[in-house]
């Protein structure tokens, strides 16, 4: 078998490293007569927004993505990609591996004739970078035109008084420079730095409450997956798990380096205080409840995530301060379970 695989990321973005890492590992682990993956950088085969359609139709066998791009086809893709002020990267790993998350990826992608292997996690995104007005409090968001991805994220920003502007990654730099937008979020600090944002923004507001962590992975056409023998399938999964762990520490290391580079470039970094974050948490919860209750499948994913948080909280909180992350004061689980029809 030979698979053609592409990704949503152009070669200029560091996010593509995760995809290449997995592809290389698969090509090393699997005998050439069983499977070979021919990988093409984003945009070379199909434009980013069309990777989903190309895998779904079987034109290509595999496509690397960030699931949130497909929220327009089913809003349940959104919580598979990121959450507003809920999960950190370790939460995603826990949930995917041991609390039933992996099945939900396959259920949602399965609706479209695909199998999904999550193989990348990155922790908190940078947050907003603004041209000439710092965001130190929630009030500072009012009236700002901010580039932001995502359905829940946009609704949450609107509740906070800002305006969501959707634009492709490649247009952000110019729009910031020309003042078409007041600020933008893009990705983790290392990816932002490679985009040159330190040249066009003076202020950086952390943390990235809109996208507390992110998942990346590969969509595989179901027919192509079924054509593999069980052992090859298992090797693909092993490569995915290994890549996921690598991606976490790789990005955190790179983000740390980039944080220093942003400071050195003279960017003023302000962290929102805990009271502001509590207020945002409240509104994020409302947004999640609203969005989840418009789509039972989305509610099912959120319900599973919230059940995990609740379940894990007993031990996580008991092991403080040596625990992994925090138990957020999240949305109402019972309400979302009701919306999921459970």
């Amino acid at each position, binding site marked *: 078998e030979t698979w053609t695989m592409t990704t949503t990321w152009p070669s200029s973005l560091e996010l593509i490293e995760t995809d290449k890492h997995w592809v290389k590992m698969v090509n090393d682990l699997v005998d050439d007569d069983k499977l070979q993956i021919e990988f093409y950088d984003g945009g070379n085969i199909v434009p980013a927004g069309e990777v989903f359609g190309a895998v779904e139709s079987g034109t290509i066998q595999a496509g690397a993505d960030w699931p949130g791009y497909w929220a327009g086809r089913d809003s349940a893709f959104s919580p598979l990609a990121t959450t507003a002020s809920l999960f950190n990267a370790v939460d995603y790993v826990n949930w995917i591996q041991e609390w039933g998350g992996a099945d939900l990826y396959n259920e949602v992608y399965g609706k479209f004739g695909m199998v999904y292997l999550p193989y990348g996690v990155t922790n908190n995104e940078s947050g907003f970078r603004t041209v000439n007005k710092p965001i130190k409090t929630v009030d500072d968001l009012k009236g700002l035109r901010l580039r932001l991805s995502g359905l829940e994220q946009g609704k949450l920003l609107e509740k906070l008084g800002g305006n969501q502007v959707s*634009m492709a990654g490649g247009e952000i730099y110019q729009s910031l420079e020309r003042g*078409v937008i007041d600020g933008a979020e893009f990705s983790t600090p290392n990816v932002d730095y490679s985009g040159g944002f330190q*040249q066009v923004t003076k202020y950086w507001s952390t943390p990235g409450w809109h996208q507390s962590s992110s998942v990346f992975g590969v969509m595989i056409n179901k027919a192509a997956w079924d054509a593999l023998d069980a052992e090859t399938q298992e090797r693909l999964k092993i490569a995915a798990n290994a890549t996921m762990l690598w991606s976490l520490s790789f990005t955190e290391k790179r983000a740390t380096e980039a944080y220093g580079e942003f400071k050195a470039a003279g960017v003023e970094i302000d962290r929102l205080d805990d009271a502001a974050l509590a207020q945002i948490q409240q509104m994020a919860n409302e947004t999640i409840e609203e969005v989840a209750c418009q789509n039972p499948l989305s509610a099912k994913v959120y319900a599973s995530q919230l059940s995990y948080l609740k379940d894990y909280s007993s031990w996580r909180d008991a092991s403080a301060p040596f625990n992994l992350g925090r138990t957020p004061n999240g949305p109402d689980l019972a309400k979302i379970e009701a919306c999921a029809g459970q």
Partner: protein
Amino acid sequence: MSGEAIALIMSGLLLLGLFMGHPLAFVLGGTAVLGAVIAGKPMVLGIVVNRIFGDVLDNYVLIAIPLFVLMARFLSDSGVTDKMFEALRHLMARVTGGLGLAVVFISILLAATTGIIGASITVMGMMALKPMLQYGYDKKLATGLIASSGCLGILIPPSIMLILMASYAPGLSVGQLFAGAMMPGVLLGLMYAIYVAAIAWFKPEWAPPVRDEEQISRAAMWRLLIVEAVPPLVLILGILGSLLAGIATATEASAIGAVLALLIVISRGRFEWATFYSALLETGRTSAMILFIVVGATAFTGVFNITGGLRASQDLIRGLADDPYMLVAMMLLVVFILGMFLDWTGIVLLSFPIFLPLVNEMGINPLWFVILMAVVLQTSFLSPPFGYALFYMRAIAPDDVSTGDIIRGVFPFILLIISMCVMIILFPSLVTWLPSTLYGG
């Protein structure tokens, strides 16, 4: 089937279709389909529709193309150009070579207000060619000058060519390309002016001054200049100003430009519903023509890539040139040769996917390279056998001007374009200075 074989077959089909006189858009699209089938991968045809939708329909930057076309049409309907030319013609009448200089300066101004070339060549040809020949200008100089100066419109911003280039060059924005093309474009125009002045100096019989009875009073001339030249200047400020000052994106600037041009038409009492409607229809046909070449090219590139043709072509180029300057020279030569047969749309769309990854690989500044290519593409309008500007001039020129005159006429200007390229290679800051001042980095 190997990548080399498929690259050869698809190039062959492309040439066949072109020489059969079939529309470029469908030669590209058809070659994509045939290439996929011949390569034994008909299943990859699915990407054709994915690419057409994602690259061409769902593309905010390309909105500017129909709007800049519409603006050019409104501007030519407004009659502003005629008046401007009249004013400058009188201003420079007493000077040897003055009429020729007026053609260059008006063309630079027109170039800075419109993004397309046909309009300016036609308008300038209609207005300037007759008086130039009448006052004894050399046929070759007159036609060559009008044709070459008219082509500046696609180099000096705004330009639909630069918009399309930005849309196909990852990481380069329309604003950067506009800023980068500004100095080379204007300098090239000035080189044309210096050339005309030199001819007028050394061979005054080729570019004689205008006779006295044609001249009008100074007052009338200044009135003409101030009343007639102001509107287009407002337009330039409206478009480039809003774009460079950060008020608007290129797409927004194109909409502002179209509406400003319409307002000029109305303010001059030249508005008629019938003309307005035919401007819309003509813009529709032109935009569809340009954008369908993009449709065909995106299909072609996708299949060329996935069947291995693209990699094979890049390996071939890599094998021939290992030094960055050598590589750039070779790619520019390819563009120049393609320019004899194809128009800029096809050249940009076919060569960018092959060239730009190599440019990045070699550590060459992509902005610099793209602008160099834009300058070389000026020749694609002028080089025989297939050059738009030659056709336009042929259509406008009287019968005693032969096609040979026109071709001999543009030849010195092709040399000037090549010297401009050499200057950009020697002094890269001609391209990079303005973008880095405006945009940093």
